[in-house]
């Protein structure tokens, strides 16, 4: 019996102690009328057999193509030490660190993670993470609603449409008004973001770089929000954050991110990692797990889950959120990743990817009919206007083993010819040359 250790003899001894004749007697409380109508599952298979099935399935995905696909989720090289360390079963087979004395490993790692994220964003504090970048935006919005006791959100259309879609789902049952501020040719309309904030606004939510890759400074947007007693919320790309003006420098109240790019594989969409950091004055509104430093009875420094009175096992329906876990293992991976790269490694990585993207822009625009969507600064992802529908361009190139990016027209009107192209260190100049060559044959 896989994973069940009982010998026949032990089974009999245990049944005798319990005082029943057979295992089925343990289910006497389930009335016959409630028993399964059927349970037609396949027979169990050997471990080797199951592994072979998955090897087969893993081989049926297009992971051997050259890809410039990003759109908020990025392929990065992950140092093998990240896998080796997060793969220690002392980490991955533990549970939420309720018993602090036997969970210092997990607790200290989360404390260090909170520190690393706070420093990367230059915010006062961070939580232990939430599910993903989308739930982080929703939770940030709810923090703002509670902190300001106001019920309207101003959201830049440049925020990733995947996350705006989630926000819609999560707000469906709540009486919260969302105003979308349209982008201006792929850039944030800063004037409109300022004008849209009024006395009913709880938060203004922006993304940097935005979905089109455009980089901006939201300092004035946040200052205006503050003057109206609204909070400034910004979603960032953590790798680019190594070089970009920080949420703290811009005066944001809450900074969030999809943390996938920090040491998590793309994994067909999950598990991912929601990063959340905020100014100190909003700490009690911060949802999810938070680890704090504490002294033990001998005066030794250690770590505990803290501020638990915000959470659902105490506050139940009045909790700050229903989130009762964090993405602990993903957070650990992000921390190890950041520790291995350090300030220099992360900065150089951002610069390397920006340089690659500039090379791709140079090569593609040299073809004549391709041009950048706008002339604003961009990071390692860029929006290009093609002389043909981006959908068509992508599927034609994909057939040749190169996925050139994502079609912006999927989510935005009048963007049918716009391609979102991202470069990371998994790409190189030779790949970009191939892309340009293949594109040249098509355009």
């Amino acid at each position, binding site marked *: *019996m*896989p994973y*069940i250790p*009982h010998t026949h003899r*032990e089974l009999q001894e*245990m*049944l005798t102690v319990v005082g029943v004749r057979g295992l089925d007697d*343990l*289910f006497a*409380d*389930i009335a016959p009328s409630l028993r399964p*109508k*059927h349970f037609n*599952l*396949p027979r*169990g298979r050997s471990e080797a057999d199951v592994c072979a099935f998955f090897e087969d*399935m893993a081989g*049926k*995905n*297009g992971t051997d193509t050259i890809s410039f*696909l990003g759109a908020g989720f990025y392929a990065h090289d992950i140092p093998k030490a990240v896998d080796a*360390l997060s793969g220690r079963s002392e980490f991955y*087979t*533990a*549970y939420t*660190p*309720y018993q602090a*004395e*036997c969970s210092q490993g997990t607790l200290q790692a989360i*404390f260090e993670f909170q*520190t690393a994220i706070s*420093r990367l964003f230059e915010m*006062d*504090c961070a939580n232990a993470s939430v*599910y*993903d970048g989308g*739930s982080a935006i929703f939770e940030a919005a709810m923090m703002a609603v509670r902190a300001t006791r106001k019920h309207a959100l101003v959201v830049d259309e440049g925020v990733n449409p995947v996350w705006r879609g989630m926000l819609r*789902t999560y707000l469906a*049952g709540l009486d919260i008004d969302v105003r979308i501020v349209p982008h201006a040719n792929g850039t944030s309309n800063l004037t409109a973001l300022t004008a849209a904030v009024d006395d009913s606004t709880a938060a203004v939510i922006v993304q940097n770089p935005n979905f089109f890759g455009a980089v901006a400074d939201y300092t004035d947007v946040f200052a205006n929000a503050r003057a109206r007693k609204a909070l400034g919320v910004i979603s960032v790309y953590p790798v680019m954050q*190594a*070089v970009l*003006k920080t949420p703290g420098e811009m005066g944001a109240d809450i900074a969030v991110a999809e943390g996938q790019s920090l040491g998590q594989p793309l994994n*067909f969409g999950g*598990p991912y990692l929601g990063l959340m950091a905020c100014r100190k004055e909003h*700490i009690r509104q911060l949802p999810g797990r938070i680890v*704090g*430093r*504490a002294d033990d009875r001998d005066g030794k420094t250690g770590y505990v889950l803290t501020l638990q009175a915000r959470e659902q096992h105490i506050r139940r*329906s009045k909790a700050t959120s*229903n989130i009762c876990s*964090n993405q602990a293992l*993903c957070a650990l991976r992000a921390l190890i990743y950041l520790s291995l790269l*350090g*300030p*220099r*490694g*992360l900065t150089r990585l951002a610069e390397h990817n920006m*340089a690659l993207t500039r090379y791709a822009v140079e090569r593609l625009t040299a073809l004549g009919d391709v041009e950048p969507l706008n002339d604003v600064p961009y990071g390692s992802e860029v929006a290009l206007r093609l002389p043909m529908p981006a959908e068509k361009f992508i599927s034609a190139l994909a057939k040749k083993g190169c*996925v050139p990016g*994502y079609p912006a027209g999927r989510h935005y009107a009048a963007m049918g010819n716009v391609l979102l192209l991202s470069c990371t260190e998994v790409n190189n100049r030779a790949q970009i040359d191939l892309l340009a060559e293949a594109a040249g044959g098509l355009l």
Partner: protein
Amino acid sequence: MNTIFAKSVPGRCSAVIDSDAPDAARMLPPNLLRARPPRLPECSELDVVRHFTNLSRQNFSVDANFYPLGSCTMKYNPKFLEYVAALPGFTRLHPLLARLGDSHAQGALRCLYETERLLCEITGMEAFSLQPMAGANGEFAGVSLIAAYHREVGRDRRILLIPDSAHGTNPASAALAGFEIANIESRDGMVDPRALAAAIAAHQGNVAGMMMTCPNTLGLMETHLPEIVKQLHDIDALLYYDGANMNAILGKMRVGDAGFDVVHLNLHKTFATPHGGGGPGSGPVGVNAHLLPFLPVPRVEKRDGLYLLNDDFPHSIGHIGPFYGSFGVAVKALAYILRLGGEGLARVAEYAALNANYLKKRLEDVLDIPFERICAHEFVASAPEGLHALDIAKALLDRGFHAPTIYFPLIVRECLMAEPTETESKETLDAYVEALREIIAQGRDDPHALGEAPLTLPARRFDETAAARHIRITEDME
């Protein structure tokens, strides 16, 4: 132990890309750049490896310790699950690639499809969505489906009924979906149909549904289930199954057959995917036929032998997660189900119940057992008069056992809630009984000494009050 930041040495580095890229200042205008680099650790690879290896050794884990944490199902996580989930054909797959042509992700889509179909057969539900990213996220999805159902037929029902034994996430998730909560008091550890009838009458026409955990958090099967189902369905209210305790009923009861309308499962409990120190989990949501139109999109379908994503469900509640759920977790759950098969899954429930009942029986003369009847996969006990559950829990740590869940459910005095799971052997359970026996004896002798535990771990008990009054949640908050 010093933090990784304290071990940082300026100028030291390990993973720095070899690049001829110019500085950011030559690619972006200065007003868009940060003033100084992030203050991250500066370490060699060995510094990092040693730090995290030593940190890991300060943890209890299923691989090293018996971990009978009630309602958490800390069973053994087979090693081959890690292997299958780490296959590069999965880990390197961009989620949006499937949106650029179904042919790019046939293997991954098939894994999702098969997982959903198997979960349907296991639970008796009509359809599943793997999108919710954890148990509480699945709860939110489930109650959102209930809200969508009533909204669709033009009803504004505001109340969800929740038993007092429920997990705290139930009311929190319900509130998040805009519901008000009415508490149903338990009687003899179970939902009392009379209390339910009274609540339905008190909130006439306003009850949208009820959330139940079954077996409940006391480890007891709800013996009045058919009557509860009938009362709710008579007023077209929906019954929600919280899958926290699904390990208890695999192959013995299918919640769909029993009349539940919507269910969430915890793949990280029932289906052996590791808990990861608190996540990531996965909380698929399953529904009966009448809730099917509201499931999150996209849905995974199979047509003419091809697997595809379908967004065309106009009544859907929308996107609960960014893509298709915690794919890396779902793959492990699928591997576990395929490995065990139907017979193996039913055996899980049988041996989980055997281990729980054996442990309960052997502890009858050690702890106060409030419900003596046969339990499901877990049971509750109270610390003997004069002793505290907290002290017993800490003393267990000193003996190498993780503590059971303590002080939950709230309706049991000095509660210790233990779930041994099916993967533990008789000698482990016997050793745990002996440890508890010693602890109780010691506590009767010298309750003060028990209050000193633990003494053998990397840390002793913490001053949590001081930590909450003087908040230090990063290295920079002193």
